[in-house]
């Protein structure tokens, strides 16, 4: 069984060969309009996908059989590692992550191309060529500088084990989801490039990849939130987002992708923003690749050092080729990319989408600027300067608040045109709710201007979105009941109402963020039997518990928690010594309620049992995870609409329409 792992490298080389063939054959088939070439190209892509998947299975076998002849297995696993974490080590290191990335890339490409060939085989052939080209790049990395199958001359008896921080359930899901998000965007990117290449710039490229865009965006969203949840429960600093370069690397493409998701609606409905949409998808994919470059190159200091490696510099030429190629193609197709329509009025949903796009892109560029600023500063001044969370918060929060307000106003405004009177009619109730929230909270003693503004905007938006659901019950057959009309309207417009549910989730998340304005913390040296106070809580040192296993030594502090005199049970923060890595790590204990989290971490123990305790009160953090769940519900609802998206038949299209190739 263990010897099967030896197939890994030959499979990768074979995958590279097939990906190369896929690129050339599909391009040949598309350009010469020869169905045979396109057909063979697609087959080569499927073969590449199968071989890369085979290589990943080979690495999993090597991990599962503790085959320490492989450097990767030695570096990221050990005999004491078992169950899901043993196989999760596949993405515990740089080479394995890259392999997982390529498995997804070729797998997604194969699935997307298989579906798209039925709709428009020449567009699919061009997209195959682009996707094959991207796969060639990643496979070159895997075959040369980041080979996960490098063998060791001296085979050790045990490995160094997986970083203990990565041994948490969140880490099993968070990286694959982020990769799925990043990689998922290669599908709409490839189809956009294919459409530019063919010059046939109808809506087909984003229609045939709509599910992929939505899937990639959903995966990235959930991946980012899970990353935050992991940081919150594992890192022990009481927060969930640190504006670290790697976090920013996932956030920037998310921002532009969110802009894209909104702005394709305009292209679909009004045949406008064609140029802008291809630019946005180029930007999104470019930022995803740029983020990978930033984090793999070690050019910026980040907590995610476990992903660093020698491959960073390989990304620059790839990124440059992609961006220059994309921009040249866009420049060559400016004619067909012109809008076919005009705004009926500035006071319209279309304008709201325009502002939405401006805010998202400004936010993405701002995050990009803050992320690369240390490099720019060092290049220009020779001194290393830093930009940390306070900088990002002060520049990002105003944009974020504007976006939240827009989330409320946007859906209230009708497409095409709205008179001032009508606007006032629909906006007054949400506005009153927002104002009352602000006044009420101020009367209750809340004094943070930012938080008051955030809470009122959240209330405004929540009421606005809920009122849209109310209006759904008024549309349709007058004879039917309100409930029937509601079900019918919502059922027929799942993307719109699913989107509103996502918006409600975002509002809840922002409420959670705003709660951090009231965060407090205390750091105390606690002797056995002593108590500490934070907020309404009293924490009493009850006992110390020591246990030992072959993997780790565990010291657990039992803290009795009282809130305003009522017992809330015992919290058990821990310090664990991981023997394989010879590393101490804190395990956080959290008492979470919708109002606030009591978050306790022990940073060290003295010999006499004295514990250095860091306690935080994190108000409203609970709502972030609830909001994320609501977002997932909304996304799932939108997916049910995508299954029943109507097939469109283009009649008498003015531009050249490719003749379907029968295979």
């Amino acid at each position, binding site marked *: 069984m263990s010897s099967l792992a030896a197939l890994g490298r030959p499979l990768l080389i074979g995958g590279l060969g097939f990906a190369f063939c896929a690129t050339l054959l599909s391009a040949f088939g598309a350009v010469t309009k020869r169905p045979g070439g396109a057909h063979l190209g697609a087959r080569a892509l499927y073969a590449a996908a199968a071989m890369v998947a085979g290589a990943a299975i080979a690495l999993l076998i090597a991990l599962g059989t503790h085959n320490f002849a492989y450097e990767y297995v030695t570096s990221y696993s050990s005999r004491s590692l078992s169950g899901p974490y043993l196989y999760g080590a596949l993405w515990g290191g740089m080479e394995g992550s890259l392999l997982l990335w390529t498995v997804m890339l070729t797998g997604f490409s194969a699935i997307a191309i298989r579906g798209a060939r039925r709709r428009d085989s020449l567009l699919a052939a061009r997209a195959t060529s682009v996707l094959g080209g991207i796969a060639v790049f990643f496979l070159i990395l895997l075959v040369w500088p980041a080979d996960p199958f490098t063998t060791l001359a001296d085979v050790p008896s045990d490995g160094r084990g997986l970083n203990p921080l990565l041994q948490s359930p969140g880490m099993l899901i968070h990286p694959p989801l982020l990769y799925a998000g990043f990689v998922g965007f290669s599908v709409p990117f490839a189809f956009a490039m294919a459409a530019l290449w063919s010059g046939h710039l109808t809506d087909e490229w984003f229609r045939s990849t709509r599910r992929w865009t939505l899937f990639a965006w959903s995966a990235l969203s959930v991946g980012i939130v899970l990353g935050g949840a992991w940081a919150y429960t594992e890192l022990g600093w009481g927060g969930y987002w640190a504006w670290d370069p790697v976090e920013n690397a996932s956030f920037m493409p998310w921002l532009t992708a969110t802009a894209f998701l909104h702005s394709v609606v305009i292209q679909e409905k009004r045949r406008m923003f064609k140029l802008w949409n291809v630019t946005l998808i180029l930007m999104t994919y470019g930022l995803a690749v740029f983020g990978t470059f930033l984090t793999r190159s070690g050019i910026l200091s980040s907590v995610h050092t476990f992903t660093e490696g020698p491959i960073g510099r390989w990304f620059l030429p790839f990124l440059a080729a992609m961006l220059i190629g994309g921009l040249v193609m866009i420049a060559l197709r400016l004619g067909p990319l012109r809008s076919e329509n005009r705004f009926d009025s500035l006071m319209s949903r279309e304008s709201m989408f325009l502002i939405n796009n401006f805010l998202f892109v400004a936010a993405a560029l701002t995050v990009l600027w803050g992320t690369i600023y240390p490099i720019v500063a060092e290049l220009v001044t020779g001194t290393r300067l830093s930009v940390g969370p306070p900088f990002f918060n002060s520049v990002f929060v105003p944009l974020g608040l504007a976006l939240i307000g827009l989330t409320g106003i946007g859906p209230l405004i009708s497409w095409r045109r709205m008179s001032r009177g009508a606007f006032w009619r629909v906006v007054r109730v949400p506005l009153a709710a927002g104002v009352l929230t602000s006044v009420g909270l101020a009367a209750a003693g809340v004094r943070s201007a930012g938080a008051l503004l955030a809470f009122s905007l959240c209330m405004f938006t929540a009421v606005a979105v809920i009122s849209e659901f109310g209006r759904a019950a008024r549309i349709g057959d007058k004879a039917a009941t309100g409930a029937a009309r509601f079900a019918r309207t919502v059922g027929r417009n799942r993307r719109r109402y699913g989107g509103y549910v996502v918006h409600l989730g975002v509002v809840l998340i922002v409420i959670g963020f705003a709660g951090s304005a009231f965060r407090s913390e205390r750091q105390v040296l606690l002797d056995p039997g002593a108590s500490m106070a934070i907020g309404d809580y009293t924490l009493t040192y009850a006992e110390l518990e020591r246990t030992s296993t072959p993997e780790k030594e565990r010291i657990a502090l039992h803290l009795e928690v009282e809130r305003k005199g009522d017992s809330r049970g015992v919290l058990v923060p821990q310090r664990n010594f991981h023997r394989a890595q010879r590393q101490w790590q804190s395990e956080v204990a959290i008492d979470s309620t919708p109002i606030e989290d009591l978050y306790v971490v022990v*940073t060290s123990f003295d010999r006499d049992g004295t514990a250095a305790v860091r306690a935080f009160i994190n108000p409203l953090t609970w709502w972030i995870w609830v909001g994320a769940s609501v977002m997932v519900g909304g996304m799932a609802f939108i997916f049910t609409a995508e299954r029943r998206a109507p097939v469109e038949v283009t009649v008498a299209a003015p531009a050249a329409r490719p003749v379907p190739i029968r295979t």
Partner: protein
Amino acid sequence: MKARLVLVLALAGVVLGTAPVDAASTDPQDVATRVAQEIMSPFCPGLTLHDCPSDAAADLRDRIVEMASAGASESEIIAELEREYGPGIRAVPESTSFGLLAWMVPLIFVIAGIGVVLFAARRLSRSRIPEGEEPISPAEREQVAREVAMLRDERRPLMDPTKRRALEAIMELEDDLTTGKLSAADLEGLRVRYEAEALRALKRLESLRIPQNIGGAEGGPSGRALDEQLEAEIAEIRATMVCETCGDVKRADGTCPTCSAP
């Protein structure tokens, strides 16, 4: 007028409500927390001292609490740490010389963005389609209304996109009137435009229905045009194969297997 007054009062409420700002606490622990959030950790790459989990960072945080207890202000503590660890320790660039650029660039993005949005909005909103181009007869209006009703009842699963888009626009305009987002006057102005668009699409589809000279002879459609004609025909024929009541595919004799409608 009354509404305006409410709005003004409401805005005043927001301003009054948000005006008082909490004075920063001088408790040494709170001062230390704020300082730790303003400086990067010398021990963990990319994290603030506040967020850094290393033991050395915990020691430095303790030292900052001592400095604050001894009466040092936030800026004094940060200045002291900058002397020790260099300017890179500041998590927020100072607003002087090159540090100013960090703050200016986002502002430039926002201002440039607003410029682009205004430019795009002005350019895109110039109306290309003349208002009320061709007068629409009551019969034509009726025809469009029938098509809209069919779309509303989901009786047309397959449809030419131009026609569908125009019909959907009319449907949305009617819905916006129902929900109070559109005034009757606005509706009329916009409706005429989309009715004209829908009619153009309908007429084009009708003209495609009678192929005059199949095979590419003089005046007749050839090659691609023929393909498009056929596709259009198929689309329209498939639409007639679907039951108008329940949306199921009809039997060969024209009756519906589900609801037995003729």
